[in-house]
């Protein structure tokens, strides 16, 4: 499987944003959109998610992917230098890599050419040290059990897991995509019954958002 970098960038507007006039905000948004367009041949944007109503720590979440990490970083540095970038904080940022999983390929939905859904539920996690010291057959059984629960919800929920080891504080980065929030609740609830949960050390923050076209997403906060 071809490896790619992914990045989930959470953004929160500062209080100074609200002091700008509508025209100033529109101009700042146009500038930010132009920066994404400048990188459109090297950085894919899976979605721009408005998180209003889900979390207080984040206003927007961008999900990007690219063959080279430097393209993602250059885009984000351009955003930080822009007018728009002067009015945001970045509460969270997560970089990952698409790689085959230990027991199967399990490619991400965006790599398989499946379009993004209306909602995204993203969360990073760390397993306990004990998990990695289990015999391979036991890990395989645990992952199989977890996977079987997830498969019950396909294609209503698309799953995208990537490796985060060494690229940040987390080991795994997971993105669920769905058009049906009720199904998401059922799926996450059901996954709590998986035995692999016994080896979950930490999973925070959950970031949920609604997918918009980029300019529309940015314009929601004007």
């Amino acid at each position: 499987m071809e490896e790619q970098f992914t990045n989930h960038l959470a953004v929160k507007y500062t209080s100074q944003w609200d002091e700008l006039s509508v025209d100033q905000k529109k101009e700042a948004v146009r500038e930010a959109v132009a920066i994404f367009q400048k990188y459109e041949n090297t950085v894919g944007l899976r979605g721009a998610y408005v998180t209003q109503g889900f979390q207080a720590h984040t206003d927007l979440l961008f999900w990007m992917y690219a063959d080279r990490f430097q393209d993602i970083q250059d885009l984000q540095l351009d955003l930080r230098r822009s007018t728009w970038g002067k009015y945001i904080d970045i509460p969270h940022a997560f970089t990952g890599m698409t790689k085959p999983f230990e027991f199967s390929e399990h490619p991400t939905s965006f790599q398989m050419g499946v379009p993004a859904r209306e909602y995204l539920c993203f969360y990073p996690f760390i397993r306990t040290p004990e998990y990695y010291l289990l015999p391979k057959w036991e890990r395989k059984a645990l992952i199989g059990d977890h996977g079987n629960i997830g498969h019950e919800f396909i294609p209503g929920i698309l799953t995208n897991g990537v490796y985060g080891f060494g690229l940040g504080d987390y080991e795994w980065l997971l993105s669920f995509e769905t058009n049906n929030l009720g199904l998401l609740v059922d799926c996450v609830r059901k996954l709590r019954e998986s035995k692999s949960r016994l080896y979950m050390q930490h999973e925070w923050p959950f970031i949920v958002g609604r997918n918009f076209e980029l300019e529309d997403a940015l314009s929601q906060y004007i």
Partner: protein
Amino acid sequence: MLISNLGRTRTKLLTSFQDLSDEQLNQNPSNKSWSIAQVLHHLYTSEKAMAGLVLDALQAKTEKVEEKDLTFITDRTKKSKAMSEPPNEMITKENLLQLLEKSRFQHLQFVFNETHERILAKKSMKHQDFGVISLKNAVDLIWLHEKRHIYQIHEIREKLNL
């Protein structure tokens, strides 16, 4: 490259008809020619069938065979007969998108949830046109076949001035 080829070809396929209405998708260029909707339905049934064959072959004891270059199947000047005819009734764009996602994210994804690309290269199956081929080649046929039909969609659009 297998996953990447599947994904990139699918993205091109979805782009090739995203601006068309239900009526335009169901227009036939002639009595003997398929509509774009029929082409898309054919891609759904083909992908679903191939994923099933690969899953069956994964369970069986099979040999490793040499990889074949099957890119010639994208050549539209070489005619081939489809295994089954797509339905004649109107199919909405929404339905077609659902079917394509079903064959991709339910059936084919299941293959990759079971195994790795490297294992697909080590196992084989008998294909009615190409003889014994590796399972990796069998999955290659999905995106190559899709590529062939993307050309067909462009031809239909040209004929219908869409």
